[in-house]
């Protein structure tokens, strides 16, 4: 070990004024911590934006009718139905126009309400986003259900239950399938299920279907009516059971595929697969449970799109909320694909009838905004660093002034300017090491605070980079008092105070 005496002198000088030294360390710690956190947050915002834009949702083009996007709350009777465009599975063929489009699917946000078996659940609950508003209105306008027919419907659904217990759902639906199958995927006007004739549907709405199995413990789930391509576009697969096919969709199969969280929460025992659940007039078989994705998908239920089977009701507004979603493989192709789709739909339905949106643009704007906030945070942190450094530099300078005599004696004893400069720099380094260590803890504290909210913490590389950067900046600021101290005239040693 070869600790020089002037370094011992430095350390003991620091210890001799503990309050001042602690203030210096604290100032350095806070500024280093703030800078490291600021840089960490900046990096995090950047990473998050990049990650977000990599998601499938932001490689999509959404096509929806104007009504579905903006006028959901206007009563049906006030709308001129001849101007309404209802998008259907046929429209997905637009995907063929552009080689950039990888997947095309139809998605329609709705909500599944269940008969939980509660006494209070006798009436018909309306939900704002409920796709069955129209049915609801019609239902109230015709308050004359035929008890016999209702009964027969119940029986038919019961018989459906019995056939649904089979594990192969293609097979179990075959006995009630009357319409010819259409393997081309195009919609057939006659692809109507007898069980799903409009009158029956309305009548059935009036009384709820029930199942033999256990009642669900939650009264609703966010649900989407989708075409099967949705699962491929989102790269979803089942952990149990299976997905539904296009054929089943066209047959109007009452099946559900549940997200993992939705499946776990539906019944008391957490088992959902191969069970049945009643919603309005429908009894759904749960045929599949998706793998966990840690996205909202986990909480959703997916059922086959009804648009395929409801052409007769287009005029009445069924399938309003349906959105066509086109996924491109690479985000750079979005603009071109959007242009091609716009051209197609304009010729098909006329200009400005449909909304053709690219969510990526909005997401980009949002991520730009959060990036700006991160930049402001970083700038504020750097200002804090600057202010702290100016103050630290100032305190070190006054320390150097107070120690002029000491420096003069050291010079008389043979210290060169260089020796003094390095001695003061070492002193700053000692303060920096302690300040830096506490600063790292401050930054990691912030990081774990963010991590508590279910997100990942600040990226470690950015935090360490911030510590390194702020230490270097601080070191530059401590150069000034060190240079000043090294210039002290040695003759001061001779002065008698």
């Amino acid at each position, binding site marked *: 070990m070869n600790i020089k005496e002037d370094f011992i002198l430095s350390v003991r000088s620091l210890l001799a004024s503990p309050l001042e030294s602690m203030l210096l360390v604290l100032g350095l710690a806070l500024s280093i911590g703030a800078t490291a956190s600021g840089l960490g947050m900046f990096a995090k915002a950047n990473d998050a934006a990049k990650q977000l834009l990599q998601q499938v949702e932001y490689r999509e083009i959404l096509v929806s009718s104007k009504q579905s996007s903006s006028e959901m709350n206007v009563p049906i009777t006030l709308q001129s139905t001849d101007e309404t465009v209802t998008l259907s599975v046929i429209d997905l063929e637009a995907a063929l126009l552009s080689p950039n489009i990888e997947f095309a699917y139809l998605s329609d946000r709705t909500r599944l309400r269940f008969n939980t078996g509660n006494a209070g659940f006798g009436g018909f609950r309306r939900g704002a986003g409920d796709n069955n508003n129209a049915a609801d209105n019609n239902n109230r306008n015709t308050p004359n259900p035929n008890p016999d027919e209702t009964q027969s419907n119940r029986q038919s659904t019961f018989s459906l239950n019995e056939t649904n217990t089979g594990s192969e759902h293609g097979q179990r639906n075959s006995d009630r399938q009357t319409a010819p199958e259409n393997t081309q995927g195009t919609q057939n006007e006659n692809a109507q299920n007898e069980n799903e004739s409009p009158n029956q549907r309305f009548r059935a709405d009036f009384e709820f279907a029930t199942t033999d199995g256990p009642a669900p413990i939650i009264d609703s789930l966010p649900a989407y009516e989708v075409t099967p391509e949705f699962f491929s576009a989102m790269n979803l697969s089942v952990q149990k059971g299976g997905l539904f096919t296009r054929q089943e969709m066209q047959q109007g199969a009452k099946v559900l595929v549940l997200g993992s969280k939705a499946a776990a929460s539906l019944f008391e025992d957490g088992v959902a697969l191969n069970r049945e659940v009643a919603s309005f007039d429908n009894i759904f078989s749960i045929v599949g449970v998706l793998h966990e994705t840690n996205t909202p998908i986990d909480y959703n239920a997916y059922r086959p799109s009804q648009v395929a089977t409801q052409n007769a009701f287009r005029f009445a507004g069924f399938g309003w909320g349906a959105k066509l979603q086109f996924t491109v493989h690479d985000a750079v192709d979005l603009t071109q694909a959007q242009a091609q789709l716009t051209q197609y739909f304009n010729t098909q339905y006329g200009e400005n009838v449909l909304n053709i949106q690219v969510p990526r643009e909005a997401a980009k704007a949002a991520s730009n905004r959060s990036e700006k906030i991160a930049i402001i945070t970083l700038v504020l942190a750097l200002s804090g660093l600057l202010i702290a450094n100016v103050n630290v530099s100032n305190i070190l300078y006054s320390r150097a002034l107070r120690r002029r005599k000491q420096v003069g004696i050291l010079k008389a004893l043979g210290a060169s300017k260089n020796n003094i400069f390095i001695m003061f720099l070492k002193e700053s380094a000692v303060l920096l090491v302690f300040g830096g260590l506490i600063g790292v803890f401050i930054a990691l504290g912030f990081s774990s605070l963010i991590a508590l909210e279910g997100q990942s913490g600040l990226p470690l590389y950015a935090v360490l980079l911030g510590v390194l950067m702020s230490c270097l900046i601080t070191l530059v600021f401590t150069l000034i008092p060190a240079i000043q101290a090294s210039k002290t005239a040695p003759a001061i040693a001779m002065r*008698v105070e």
Partner: protein
Amino acid sequence: MIRLENIEQKYDLGEQEVVALNNISLEIKEGEFVAIMGPSGSGKSTLLNLLGILDNPSAGKFYLEGHDITSLPDKEQARIRNKHFGFIFQSFNLFSELSAMENVMLPMSYAGVSFSDRKSRAKELLTQMGLSHRLNHLPTMMSGGEQQRVAIARALSNKPSLILADEPTGNLPTAKGQEILDILKGLHKQGTTIVMVTHNDEQAQMADRVIYMQDGSIQDSSKQDNKVLESQRGE
């Protein structure tokens, strides 16, 4: 050993220019004991600063062993102070944060002496000064006389050829002051050159030569010194 030629020292105090030393020429020979006397403000401290290269003159030449050192870079001047000069101050100027040992060891660290050598040399010097029982004491725990002896040990650490003492007994009671003077006398006997600033005529009598300062000039010196000056004028 040291030769000063026409040294001038001016301080610029804003509008006023103060002439601290005026045309000083002086020679100090190897092994000499020189006392500098004079009233306050006569420039004797300034002269000592110049001799110790703690200050550079405004004009004139400073020869050390025949080399002009006024234009040497800071690093070289520091090296000369460190290796060849030993300073003894009126107010001791020990570092209160360091023990007696560490105070003595400090100049040796600038000379690049290893830790173990520094330690043994410091111990040896302090023992010589009769402070073997005070090695790890802080200066504040020692008497003035002890502190000055530590300072002398520190001044001797790098075996200097010149000791510059600025009123070394000024802050000490007479008895303790005598101890310090005895040590200096002993060093002189061993061949060390000593330049001492003093107010005390008795102490000045110990010296081979006394330089009287008045208003920044050398007023009167011993005959020997006058001869030197004459011989220089003759050159």
